[in-house]
């Protein structure tokens, strides 16, 4: 294993860079395609419908309860593929490293990527490394691109959503956002809440097999459930009516949100999905989700409705109705 810190030579295309690639990236991510050491990974996917997606990952802190930027960069892109109903096959990864970044931290991050990729059954087949001067990065940025195959006949899209369909989520909302916030400077609080960072394609495979008429899937990451549902409502030109009592939120996530003036519905997730399906299929879909380890707390949280204003509304546990709006930007803790 390498020790010390990243310096400009690690991105300079010389021997130091070759050492870094061999001793850190290749050591962890090893597979026959990557190990050929070519400029690009050669794969063969005959006669299949393919999906590709790319996702940049920047997060502070880099290590957080329940995960780190390495695993997150694998899960994030796999989940983007999975939301199309795809089985993920290959990833590529681009690293922007900041001069001075500890090499043992990098080693941990890449090791965690390898663990996440192995667990998900995907290979990282090509990569790139650049080093920027100290002060021009935030330790590590990772961009991953993924390739997956979609079963024939499956076409999941928000464009297919109509009024009168059921809206489901696969589990508790806001875990990732709260886990990360708990380690932010000047906000620290102690919690046992872990990030939900995980790859969802296994759950998705069970769902689409059991309910092929499923309309769409999406993972409510940044901006949380509220932002993602509003995106869907706008794209599909429908409204939604949710039932607050049905939306799963862990007690500690609710408590941390009370403390900081945040709303769990605006708080990020990295291992949950939203599913929309015909109302008649909702119970069957829910049953399949409940059987999967990642869907045990799945719930039917509402339905799509006709609404020219495309609002996402919610019946509150208190007996009133309110709008579930998306935020202008990042949710900030507040005192009033």
């Amino acid at each position, binding site marked *: 294993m390498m020790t010390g810190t990243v310096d400009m030579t690690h991105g300079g295309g010389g021997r130091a860079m070759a050492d870094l690639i061999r001793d850190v990236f290749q050591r962890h991510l090893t597979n026959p395609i990557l190990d050929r050491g070519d400029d690009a990974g050669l794969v063969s996917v005959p006669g299949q419908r393919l999906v590709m997606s790319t996702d940049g990952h920047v997060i502070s802190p880099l290590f957080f309860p329940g995960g780190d930027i390495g695993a997150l960069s694998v899960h994030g892109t796999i989940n983007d593929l999975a939301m199309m109903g795809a089985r993920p096959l290959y990833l590529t990864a681009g690293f922007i490293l900041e001069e001075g970044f500890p090499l043992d931290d990098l080693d941990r991050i890449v090791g965690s990527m390898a663990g996440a990729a192995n667990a998900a059954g995907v290979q990282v087949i090509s990569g790139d490394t650049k080093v920027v001067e100290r002060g021009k990065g935030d330790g590590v940025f990772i961009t991953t691109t993924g390739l997956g195959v979609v079963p024939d006949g499956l076409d999941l899209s928000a464009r297919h959503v109509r009024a009168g369909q059921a809206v489901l989520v696969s589990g508790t909302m806001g875990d990732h956002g709260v886990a990360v916030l708990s380690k932010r400077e*000047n*906000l620290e609080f102690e919690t046992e809440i872990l990030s939900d960072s995980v790859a969802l394609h296994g759950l998705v495979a069970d769902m689409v097999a059991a309910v092929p008429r499923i309309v769409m899937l999406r993972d409510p990451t940044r901006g949380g459930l509220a932002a993602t549902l509003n995106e869907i409502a706008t794209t599909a030109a429908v409204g939604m009516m949710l039932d607050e009592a049905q939306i799963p939120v862990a*007690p500690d996530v*609710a*408590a941390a949100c*009370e403390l*900081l*003036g945040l709303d769990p519905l605006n708080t990020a997730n990295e291992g949950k999905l939203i599913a929309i399906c015909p109302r008649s299929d909702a119970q069957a879909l829910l049953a399949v989700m409940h059987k999967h380890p990642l869907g045990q707390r799945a719930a039917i949280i509402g339905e799509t409705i006709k609404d*020219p*204003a495309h*609002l996402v*509304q919610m019946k*509150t*546990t*208190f*007996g*009133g*109705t*309110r*709008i579930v*709006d998306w*935020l*202008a*930007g990042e949710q*900030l*803790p*507040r*005192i*009033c």
Partner: protein
Amino acid sequence: MRYISEFRDRALAEKLAKGIAQEADAARDYHFMEFCGGHTHAIFRYGVQDLMPENVHFVHGPGCPVCVLPVRRLDDAVELAEKHGVILCTYGDMMRVPGTGRRSLIRAKADGADIRMVYSTLDALKIARDKPDRQVVFFAIGFETTTPPTAVAIKMAKAEGLTNFTVFCNHVLTPAAIGHILDSSDFAPGGPARIDGFLGPSHVSAVIGSRPYEAAAQKYRKPVVIAGFEPLDVMQSVLMLIRQVNEGRAEVENEYTRVVTRDGNEKAQGLVAEVLELRDSFEWRGLGAVPDSALRIREAYAEFDAEKRFAVSDKQSREVKSCECPAVLRGVKKPTDCKLFGTVCTPDNPMGACMVSSEGACAAYWSYGRQRQSETAA
């Protein structure tokens, strides 16, 4: 969550709704000002209005510290961070509020100013200890609730001999604002707006007690009910106000007895009095200059006063001209009466502070209440 979940109980809400419907006199209307943005937020977030009879109206008051801070003071804070090179520590609430030219702290930060969001004055002190070579200014905003923590921080800084920590003090006082609203011609008999009673502040009153409202209740013959911020507290307090109005009483009553006493937190009051003193007058956004309505740092603690350590320039601070925030803050207009509301002014593109703060009336209308408008229109 103990002391929270019980006060959001739906079954009790239904009972209270029945009680209110039963006791509200159908032959008249009730206009109650909730002074605090906290109540505004609760009313919208839980849909409390849905549980009220049609003749019970909420008038949103100026109790949002972010909303009433004049643009000039925000511009000064931006200048402290940009021209004086200080580390400016602020509560998250202020980050997006637009100043002159719609320049906010978040924009100034993007342009390189060292602006840090803190949760507590303790965090600002820690930054000052950790960065002895930098000047650290705490941007203090808020009502009586938020003032004691500022006083404690100043006392700690003095005890520790910190020479790089100052406070830009913008703390304002609630009873003075209530009196000022009731003195204005808007709420005079025959004026354009009406208030039959007040939902009194919860957490401000935890500090100052319920006694300071007694003079106003008597002088103006308006009932005041100190109300907790949970939705059941709001409903119970409305019921208590309706009873007072029906019986012709104008008393200060306390619904929030689990926290508020008549005398409040005397230790906190003592700490504030030791460090801070009354300003003769202070500008409130919406209300204008209000006498005896704000606090500044006492001479004995002058070394911790950012206004004394740093000379901020005279500047022409300007709000967006057609923004109706001031009238909304006075309770004279509703957000929907503003031409900018929902067209050019949205939370993505706020023209005034009332659209930024989660307890600003405009943001509350936008975030939680738009469906009511479309229903009314339809």
